[in-house]
């Protein structure tokens, strides 16, 4: 199988960044969930905080990279006016049109909520640091934002994979 430049970018956008995102999301969520219950000594707690900050900011960075490569690199190829672009092919076939009018249109918009929410989590974790372990309300809010980041990214990732399967970027 030979991939064009468009194909490679799509692979980076969807198949490299997504697994990295899943890893750092799971790590960040676990650190936030267990922050309160660790009962750690000061040096251990500082290590745990460092890990939490690294994972949360790594997640925010990956989400920004996913959204920027998606919007500015893959999407222009997807929606090119030529008849062989994925968008043109989907809209030309009546039974496939919903892959654009529903799946792509949902994915391209909702996924942009992810970097906004993830950046807010990064800020909260960095600003409050160790205090977050005792601040249940803010820690829970950060966890909810993290889960919403995941949900918005999951819509983008899952629909993107299906759309690529139905009409690959050549």
């Amino acid at each position, binding site marked *: 199988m030979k991939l064009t430049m468009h194909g490679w970018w799509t692979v980076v956008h969807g198949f490299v960044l997504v697994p990295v995102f899943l890893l750092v999301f799971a790590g960040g969520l676990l650190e936030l969930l267990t922050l309160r219950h660790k009962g750690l000594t000061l040096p251990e707690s500082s290590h745990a905080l460092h890990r939490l900050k690294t994972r949360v900011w790594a997640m925010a960075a990956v989400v920004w990279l996913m959204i920027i490569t998606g*919007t500015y690199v893959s999407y222009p190829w997807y929606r090119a006016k030529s008849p062989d672009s994925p968008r043109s092919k989907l809209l030309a076939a009546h039974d496939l049109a919903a892959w654009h009018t529903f799946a792509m249109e949902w994915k391209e918009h909702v996924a942009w*909520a992810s970097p906004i929410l993830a950046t807010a989590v990064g800020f909260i974790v960095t600003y409050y640091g160790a205090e977050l372990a005792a601040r249940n*309300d803010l820690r829970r809010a950060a966890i909810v934002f993290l889960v919403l980041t995941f949900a918005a990214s999951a819509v983008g990732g899952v629909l993107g994979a299906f759309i690529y399967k139905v009409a690959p970027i050549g």
Partner: protein
Amino acid sequence: MTTVRFEKTNGPALAAIVAAGFGVLVLGLCTLLAEVSTATNNALNWWPPAGPLVGKTGVAVIAWFVTWAVLHLAWRRREVSFRMWWAVALGLILIGFLLTFPPIFQIPRGH
């Protein structure tokens, strides 16, 4: 009953949370407005290869940053009502998410 006193106020966290909610709401509103009005759709077409998506998301990101800066300055030393502002933020996010859902924002198209 003992009251826990924290070194930092909750204002900066809620500024980030409410601003993020507002950013998501603006994203949803821009998505809907681009459907309702051709003039808005054209005005949001900042970079033709990607179409109005760049304008919609650009406006949302600017609104998010500006709101965050303003709220952060206003609340940086204040303890604000977590319950109220958390509920506001979740409401904004919910409306924003709904407005990015095609069966809702495509209503003006007549689908």
